[in-house]
């Protein structure tokens, strides 16, 4: 069984069979992570370049661990200490690195569409670790794996994504993936942070968090970015916390059992209160563990696909 595409650029248009293949493959790699020696020779002899133009600790570390546990050789490239500072274009950077005979590129970049661009200018297989506000497919895949692990299914569940939807690649990839898998998806946040046409993706829109939680099985909470305050997107963190923050009181009010997820890093006591983040409702740490396994599955499926 193989994936339809030799790249992982995004979840928009990805077939249910492909998503299931990745999630099912994850199960085996999840098992590997429970062994005392967490290493398999699957990608031995393959060279993978992590091309990170945006700073990232968690995603980069997660990918690197996944790559090393598959026995691949890893090269890290971060834009701070590099030729990008000297004005080299993405195209030239990527092509130069490719000439050193590498097998796969995992890239994170601030420009939407940069992954599509990269896949057109180099021959190696490309994995999207986040392109601007467009897609972050491995995050959405690990979110879906975590949901499936908890509930035994994705279809028919009600997932609500709360926060800055307009600037979130995590939200968009989740919407694409969850809709394909048959979940009901809703978004909630201040009107200024929800794109005008989001409902055309088949998503319900709430501006009232309590209303959103009334029917949700899972709440995926996004980090609110402080820089958005400057461009008149929302007034203060205090107001955000009060009206959109997921707190213990808010969860108790629903009288329902709701699972909490967050892609991290958390702004404690802004979008998520400390006690909820650390509570039994939270699957946040499980997401981190599953993240490495999902990325191992993706690297394996893309790396062994010609």
């Amino acid at each position, binding site marked *: 069984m193989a994936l339809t595409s030799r790249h992982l650029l995004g979840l928009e248009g990805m077939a249910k069979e492909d998503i299931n293949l990745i999630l099912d493959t994850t199960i085996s790699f999840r098992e590997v992570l429970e062994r005392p020696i967490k290493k398999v020779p699957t990608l031995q002899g393959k060279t993978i370049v992590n091309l990170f133009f945006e700073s990232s600790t968690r995603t980069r570390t997660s990918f690197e661990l996944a790559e090393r546990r598959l026995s691949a050789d890893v090269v890290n490239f971060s834009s701070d200490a590099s030729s990008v500072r000297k004005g080299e274009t993405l195209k030239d950077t990527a092509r130069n690195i490719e000439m050193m005979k590498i097998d796969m590129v995992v890239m994170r970049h601030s420009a*939407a569409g940069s992954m599509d*661009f990269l896949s057109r*200018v180099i021959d190696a297989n490309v994995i999207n670790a986040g392109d*601007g506000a467009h897609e972050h497919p491995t995050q959405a895949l690990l979110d879906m794996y975590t949901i499936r692990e908890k509930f035994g299914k994705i279809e028919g569940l009600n997932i609500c994504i709360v926060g800055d939807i307009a600037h979130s690649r995590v939200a968009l990839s989740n919407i694409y993936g969850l809709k394909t898998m048959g979940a009901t998806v809703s978004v909630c946040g201040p009107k200024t942070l929800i794109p*005008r*046409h989001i409902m055309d993706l088949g998503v319900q829109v709430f501006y009232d968090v309590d209303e959103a939680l009334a029917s949700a099985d899972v709440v995926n909470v996004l980090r609110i970015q402080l820089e958005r305050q400057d461009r008149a997107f929302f007034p203060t963190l205090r107001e955000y916390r009060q009206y959109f923050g997921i707190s213990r009181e808010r969860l108790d009010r629903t009288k329902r059992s709701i699972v909490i997820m967050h892609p991290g890093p958390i702004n404690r006591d802004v979008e998520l209160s400390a006690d909820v983040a650390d509570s039994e409702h939270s699957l946040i740490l499980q997401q981190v563990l599953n993240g490495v396994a999902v990325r191992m599955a993706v690297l394996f499926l893309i790396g062994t696909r010609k």
Partner: protein
Amino acid sequence: MDILLRNCRVVSPAQKLDEVADLLIVAGTFEKIGTDLTAPEGCVIRDMLGAVAAPGFIDMHVHLREPGFEHKETIESGCHAAAAGGFTAVCCMPNTNPAIDDAGIAASIVEKSRNVLQGVVDVHPVAAATKGREGKELSPMMELAGAGAVAFTDDGAPIQSAEVMRRALEYASMIGKPIIQHAEDTAMTHGGAMNEGFVSTALGMQAMPPVAEDIIVARDIRLAEYLDAQYHVAHISTAGAAELVRSAKAKKLRVTCEVTPHHFTLTDEAVRSFDTNTKMNPPLRSRSDVEAMKAALADGTIDVIATDHAPHSYDEKQVEYIYAPFGIVGLETALGLAMTELVEKKIISLHQLIEKCSINPRKILHLAAIEIAEGKRANLTLFDPTREWVVDTQRFKSKSKNSPFHGMKLRGKAVGIINNSSSYFSES
């Protein structure tokens, strides 16, 4: 230059002329118009095989990039592209380096153009409305007009301040010239790379809302009314802006506008490919905006078709979408797109096409009307409305090939132009 054009379909709507005739041009002037004409000694004879001979087309929105950006285009290559596209005149925009805010610069551009292809393409500069296009102080419009400037604009930027726009309209109206506005509220569009709509949501791309164009048009129309000034909207692209211009015309205000071929052909769906040749400002809009452009062309709300020909070098466009410069070339595909998307589809007639490409722009810019009549100077666009061809950007005369239309099949092609006692004919 003496030339006899046989079997032309001579179409001049302003003269209510649409008939097959031979045109004998001696020393750049129509000597005889009739049938079965004989050519004098040494005269070149061309059988036009029924091709249309129309009053010369003018593209009133072209970026020639010289001075300052000669790697993208020069006056020479731009005039070649114009001639190949069937234009006998272009208006060049002032966002050069230095900007055309000085009479000497305007004069030198005109002078240079006279040496390209024996001056067959007239270049009429549109000078900066404000010094350096900074939007703060008025440029010396009177001196610039004296050097050949036909209008004033700060294009590719808007005149953002209402007060400065008021003063610019006031001053320009004193000398009988229009202000051309690139209508965009930059605070709203800051960081945007495409139209705000469903596609931008699906692509997670920072976007420019159509209302950012509408509010500037609404504001400026009010100012133009207040001052009884002449105002022209560059590259109109939204249904909202078209509606505002329609209302202004109903009130008999001196408000006009132009549309580019890409804005009546492509929608923002084209951006899904992330091809940077779909990136321009104003951006490709939604289906309803494109339909509104066509309806506005049909009912006369849109007066002019102008390309906003914006050359960029290959390397400049071979970057991530948000970093790519805005703009595509258009001189060599304008006629084909207008014929294929508008005339063939019966949205406008051939006569209306000629109005929008020749008669109306010349009126707006206060350039003398072109007459196809014995004794008049010959200024002609010759085109075959039925010629089918496939766009090959590598064959463009323009230095730059940044066009999204490569490989597109079009019907209608320029065959040649006649102007200033010179001629230019395309090879194939």
